[in-house]
């Protein structure tokens, strides 16, 4: 008996008990549906994160810090390593160091980390934001090479800035959408929310109020403390800049907003009076010296040269950190998440497997005489076994296919429900689920495997039936 005959025979046997086959298959459908929707959530999260990293070119980025830090050792809680790091003498990240880094083969661009807070006014509305200084060369790289409107600044001393799309809402600006007409709610109108086209914002002036230390005010500040009327020794400076570009949203997981909502040319940033630190930690670090940077961002021209560049940097006794290093760790984390979600789905499938065993055992009891007849006319044990395996495989495969469809529908509905919640808040639609080819094929293979495993005992039992007894069976 060849495989085609077995498949035809299997189908016809299942067709005879339609309702039972349908219910058993439904168990597999639900099992695979649960499994795939859960795992697709895990893979969707992973894809969103890795895509965001890729879109922001983070895999080719290196952050250089003054101290050599072994992230893995610290993460593992090695007390001696942390103590060692604290004891280490810092290598100051100076301009000469920056020049040396730029000379390393493979380094495309290197610039110091410069961030500062400021109060910004745009089109009559003000908000407090962080500025991030960046050289004009960054316009070549993702995500800065893909602007929503306008363009990235051309020179490091130009008086124009790039605004991230995400922060426009803080200036009560909603952008026009070609696909969907935006209608303001009464609440929005009362707040004074404006609907503008992205292009209309380009060329507009922003007023930047930055804070800097005024040393002459320090004695007054001290006296004021004594008088119990505290005064701060700071001075406000107003700088006028122009908006030359709006940067597209970087996606739900790629947002770099914590670094700064407005990107400013390095040269321009240096001219703006501001507090001489980029974070509170700089203030706390008594070794922080004027003319040094807290960190330096490095971009390499080819991911393959990552190790080479990192080695050269480590030789300069500075701390080196790259996202690429953490990718494996991130992947491991997602694997754990996928496994947990998969395990929950697998439970449903195992229950479905028990359903298959039950169906098959019942089927054997009902078909004992038929099995005896098949043996009497020459059916071998292997063929009888195979007939049952084929029946289970058909249930597994059909259940797998419809389970995938069910899983896909469930994830689509879940996405729709979730987006219905976040879209009114002005967020971009999210796609939290992802069905990669391996998940589709893997789910089908798993469904098939569970079904065949479930048929193992019934098939063996059927094959071992004594034909003489079976022929007497009613």
């Amino acid at each position, binding site marked *: 008996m060849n495989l085609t005959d077995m498949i035809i025979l299997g189908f016809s046997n299942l067709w005879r008990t339609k309702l039972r086959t349908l219910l058993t298959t439904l168990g597999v459908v639900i099992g695979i549906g649960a499994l795939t929707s859960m795992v697709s959530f895990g893979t969707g999260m992973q894809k969103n994160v890795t895509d965001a990293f890729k879109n922001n070119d983070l895999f080719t980025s290196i952050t250089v810090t003054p101290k050599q830090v072994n992230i893995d050792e610290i993460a593992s809680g090695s007390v001696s390593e942390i103590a060692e790091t604290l004891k280490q003498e810092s290598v100051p990240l100076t301009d000469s160091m920056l020049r040396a880094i730029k000379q390393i083969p493979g380094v495309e661009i290197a610039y110091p980390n410069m961030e500062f807070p400021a109060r910004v006014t745009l089109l009559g509305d003000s908000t407090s934001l962080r500025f991030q200084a960046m050289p004009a060369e960054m316009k070549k790289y993702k995500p800065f090479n893909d602007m929503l409107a306008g363009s990235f600044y051309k020179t490091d001393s130009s008086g124009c800035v790039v605004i991230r799309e995400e922060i426009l809402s803080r200036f009560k600006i909603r952008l026009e959408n070609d696909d969907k007409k935006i209608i303001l709610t009464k609440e929005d109108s009362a707040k004074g929310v404006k609907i503008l086209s992205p292009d209309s914002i380009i060329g507009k002036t922003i007023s930047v109020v930055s804070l800097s230390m005024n040393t002459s005010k320090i004695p007054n500040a001290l006296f004021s403390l004594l008088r119990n009327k505290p005064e701060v020794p700071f001075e406000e400076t107003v700088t006028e800049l122009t908006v030359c570009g709006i940067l597209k949203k970087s996606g739900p997981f790629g947002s770099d907003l914590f670094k700064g909502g407005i990107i400013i040319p390095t040269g321009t940033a240096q001219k703006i009076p501001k507090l001489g630190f980029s974070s509170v930690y700089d203030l706390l670090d008594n070794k922080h010296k004027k003319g040094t940077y807290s960190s330096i961002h490095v971009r390499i021209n080819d991911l393959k040269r990552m190790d080479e560049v990192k080695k050269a940097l480590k030789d300069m006794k500075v701390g080196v950190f790259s996202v690429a290093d953490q990718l494996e760790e991130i992947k491991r984390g997602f694997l754990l998440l996928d496994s947990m979600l998969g395990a929950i789905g697998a439970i449903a499938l195992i229950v479905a497997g028990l359903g298959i065993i039950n169906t098959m055992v019942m089927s054997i009891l009902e078909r004992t005489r038929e099995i005896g007849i098949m043996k009497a006319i*020459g059916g071998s044990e292997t*063929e009888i076994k195979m007939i049952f395996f084929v029946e289970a495989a058909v249930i597994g495969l059909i259940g797998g296919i419809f389970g995938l469809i069910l899983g896909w529908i469930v994830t689509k509905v879940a996405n729709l429900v979730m987006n219905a919640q976040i879209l009114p808040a002005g967020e971009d639609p999210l796609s939290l689920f992802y069905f990669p080819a391996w998940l589709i094929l893997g789910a089908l293979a798993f469904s098939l495997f569970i079904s065949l495993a479930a048929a193992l005992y019934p098939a063996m039992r059927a094959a071992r039936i*004594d034909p003489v007894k079976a022929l007497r069976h009613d």
Partner: protein
Amino acid sequence: MAILSVSGLEKTYKKGKVDIPALLNVTFEINEGEFFSVVGKSGSGKSTLLNLIGGLDRATAGTIIFDGNDLRKMNRTELANHRRFSVGMIFQSFNLIKSRNALENVELALIFGGVPRNQRSKKATDLLTQVGLGHRLTHTPDELSGGENQRVAIARALANNPKMLLADEPTGNLDSETAGEIIEILSNLNKSRHLTVIMVTHDLETAEIVSDHIIRMKDGKIVELPQKTEVL
């Protein structure tokens, strides 16, 4: 020339710790093309003997040499092949698959026999036509009379051109007229195809008409091995 040689055949069933002998030292030979009948009362061991010759069961002792091969030395697959190609079996209760029609029941044997799909339907139709059921191909066993069901069973038994037909009480469930028709079919097959037939029956009278040789069994033993005229 003997196609089947049975020697010192014994079969014992175990029920708990008790051994129940079903066959005791059974010895006989059947020549090719012979119509051989085994008569005896219920429980005499004749069906057990047929099951052992058909390879449905294994003997406890003795030998069954079929066409030069010892059935007791065969493994399970070889026994399945013996049932598939060497012998065809028909039973008192027909043993047809109720959910399949006449044509499909015969085709099932052809499937096990490895007959290509494009030849199966024609071959099954031919076989059913030969037993007079060319007009009842798509009828299921429930839609056929007892005699018709037995004809389907005969057609199925002949599907893979066996050398021997084993008939276990083939007329036991039939009225005398229909029984006569079935016996006639078996007799014709024996004569026209030179097909060896072993028939187990209660009906000594019928056996005497069609058989070349008859053995009578009692309590698992052959009690007489007479010539045809002596049995009468």
